Every structure is written in C-alpha cells, then in structure tokens.
C-alpha cells in the first residue's frame, strides 16, 4: 500500500523533500501549497525542484540534512535534524532535549 501511494502521489521523503514539507505542516499547520513554498524558499529552489531527485540528492548532502543512501560521514538522526531546525527555522523536540542533555558540565 505504501509503495502504491508513494508511486502515485508521494513527495518522496528524504529522497527529496517530503520530510521537510511534512515538518512545516505539523509545526505550523501549513497546508500543502504554503508548506511547499516555504520549504522551496528556504532551500533556494523552485517548488517543482522539491520532488526532483536530481536536484535534491546533492542538495540534501550539501546541507547535511540526511540522504536516503548509506553515506558514511553524512549527518543522520539528531545531527541531521539539528541542521533541519536551522534550515527551516523551527525547533525539533528531540534536538532540544539533546541540547539540554549535552549542556551539563
């Protein structure tokens, strides 16, 4: 089922920009057009580029926001999410907790 929906309608997750658009829907209650425009602006690309793997694969690696392929040295997990926070100007709960945990002497 997930595969069929992905092929028919999906934004593409971390292959492209789906996670970023989803972040704006959940963080700011943005509907899809507004969320896509916001993300495209922050990434400095067009809305059509958001689902273009040719554009997004290298851009994600350059921004350190996580890529779909196994790439040693590339940020994953909280490291990637801390970069996403800065990119999208949002706070992510687990990153906040991580900062609190690592600020103790």
């Amino acid at each position, binding site marked *: *089922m997930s595969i069929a929906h992905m*092929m028919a309608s999906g934004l593409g997750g971390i292959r492209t920009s789906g*996670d970023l658009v989803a972040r704006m829907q*959940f963080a700011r*209650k943005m509907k899809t057009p507004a969320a896509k425009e916001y993300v495209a602006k922050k990434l400095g690309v067009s809305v059509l580029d958001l689902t273009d793997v040719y554009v997004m694969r290298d851009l994600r690696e350059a921004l350190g926001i996580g890529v779909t392929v196994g790439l040693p040295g590339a940020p994953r997990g909280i490291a*990637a999410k801390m970069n996403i926070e800065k990119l999208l100007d949002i706070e992510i709960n*687990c990153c906040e907790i991580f900062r609190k945990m690592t600020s103790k002497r």
Partner: protein
Amino acid sequence: MAEYLTYMGDGKRIFCTREKIIDDLQAGMAEAVEVGNVPDLTSEELAMLCDIVCDRNRIVSVEPGNEVVLSNDGAQNKFTGDSGSSGCGIEMSALAAAQVHERALSMDTFEFGSLDNNYSVKPLKAVIAMQMQKMEDMQNSMIVPFFYGAMPNMGLYYEPDGPFGNPPDLMREGKIEEAQSEMEKAMDMMTRDIEFMGVKMQEAGSDGFNFDTTASAGDGDFLSVLRGVELLKKARPEAQTMVGMSSENVIGIHGMLDYKGQDVAGIYPHDQAKLAEMAGVDVFGPVTNTKSGKSLAWNMAYSVALIKECEKKSNLPCHVNMGMGVGGIPMLETPPAEAVTRCSKAMVEVAKVDGI
C-alpha cells in the same frame, strides 16, 4: 461498446462501460451529498474522476508538482504484525521497520507504537518506561518527523476489559442514563491517560502523538481525544498531534455530548475537522468507509465528495486515511494497486488533500 477494467469495493475485478462508470460516480456522489450534507462535485470534477477510473494503464499518478505528504499510522506493525494490523509477519525490530519506511519506502513521517500492548492508550501506560526508552533510541537515528502512535480505543475502559459498565449492555437493559454516566467516567479516565502518555513521550523526544482510529467507540471516544489533545498541548506546547478518524460519521453511542458547544455525535469530516482545530490538533485525518458492494467508481465519488468538503472547510492540513476499506480503496487485505493509485490520484487532484 468499449469496456474498462475496474473493481468492486471488495476488490473483485469487473468490466464496465464508460456510461456505467459515470452512473456509478453520480450515484456515489449523490449518496455523499445526502448523508454528509456536502455540495455536489462539479461536472469537471466528475469528468476527472471518470478519466481516472477509465485510464487504461495499470498505475496512475498525479502530475509532477501535485505530490503530497505521506504520513503513516500503524507504526512498525505493518511489517511485524499479523493480518489484524495489515502486517506481513516479518521478524524485525521497530527501528529497522522505521528505517525501511524512511530510507527505502520514502515515507514523509513515521511513528513508533506497540502492538504487543494492543497499540492502545490504556495498556500502554503500564509499559511507558520501555516505550520512552525505545523512542529515545529511535530519535537518535530517524530523520523524518517521528511520532508516537496509538489508538484511543475507549472500548478497553468498559467491562470486561475495564472498570466501567458496558454502555450497549446497559442500554439494552433500558439503563440509558446509567450507560451515559459510565461513558462519561470512562472518558475522564481516557483523557487523563492520553495526557499522561503524550507528556511522557514528549519527554522521550517524540515529535508528537498520532491518534489512530479515533472515535471507534463513538462520540465519547472522539471527545476524550479532543480533551486529551487540549491537555497535552497545554502541558507540552511543542507536541504535534495528528488525529486520524475511524469512520466517516461519529457514531452516537452517548448521543448528548458536545465540545465547546458543538455536537459531537453524527458529525461528518468537515465538522469533525472544526472540532479538531478547536482542540489544537495540528493535522486532521478524515476517513470515509468503502462500501464493499459498490464499485470503485461509486466509492471514489462518495469519498471524494465528503473529503473535498472537509479539506475546503478545514484550516488544518488534512491527511485522508487511505488504507484497506477506507478512502474508496477496496476492503481487501491486499487491495489492487490499480485501485489504490486511482483513489490516491483522485483524492489529491480532485479533493485537494494535503496528505495521505
């Protein structure tokens, strides 16, 4: 006369003429208009649906640029669970299942939830520390928005599974007020449990809480979730919530409940979304129930007419439920991909949903 391969609501293959498909689309829409009090689809929209159903290709899709967010419910259970949760029975960890969804299946969000504990709020309280520990571990690896997911499942608060009298049993005995009173007590307990679970999972780093199959036990179930979301948001404003429903109208088991002056029982998606918004929900997940004895065309028009109005009236992003037996998709554990992709396209390009 040319015939097109299409499906019944139970997934069975049939062949229909374009005229028959148009008739079914109009009948499905008419039913939605009548039951949900929503406007007709326009003739252009019906023509689009007809083209989608009649497309000769196996798989159809939206035009580039029209893609939407794919969120999930059911968590890792889609892999690890049995057929009851549409699972494949694959032995793997919750983290591995989440990573496969993120990195191989290109899901835009995912969640962790425990089927071992009935994937329901009440029993999960007892294993909260283990749930928190797993959430902490998984947040260290996941990149996509990652939630904690569970069903409210108010049925577990009633006898024989819980402390409160069973409302349908009491009503059969003519004890209607007593049944309503028991329901209200169960609601209070479930609301507190939702707040407790939600706060704990936020402490563990969750992005928020995904309520799956909300209102399966009727109006009291829905009201408890709305109140629970409100309390959770007050305690942890950063908690992002998605409320996914279980049916197209809220079944009136109590019948006299209201949320901030608005009736809860009997309401359809466009009114449900309004209550969700009042409670502080971030993303709303409307549902329509597929009628297995009707065709794909009938179910598609029925679902699109109801969800289009929901999307139009809602200020929240709406992610329509589109799994087995919902959103026009046939009631079959392994629904035909041909039917799934048609419903997917119809919901995105005609109903204009924000996500699936």
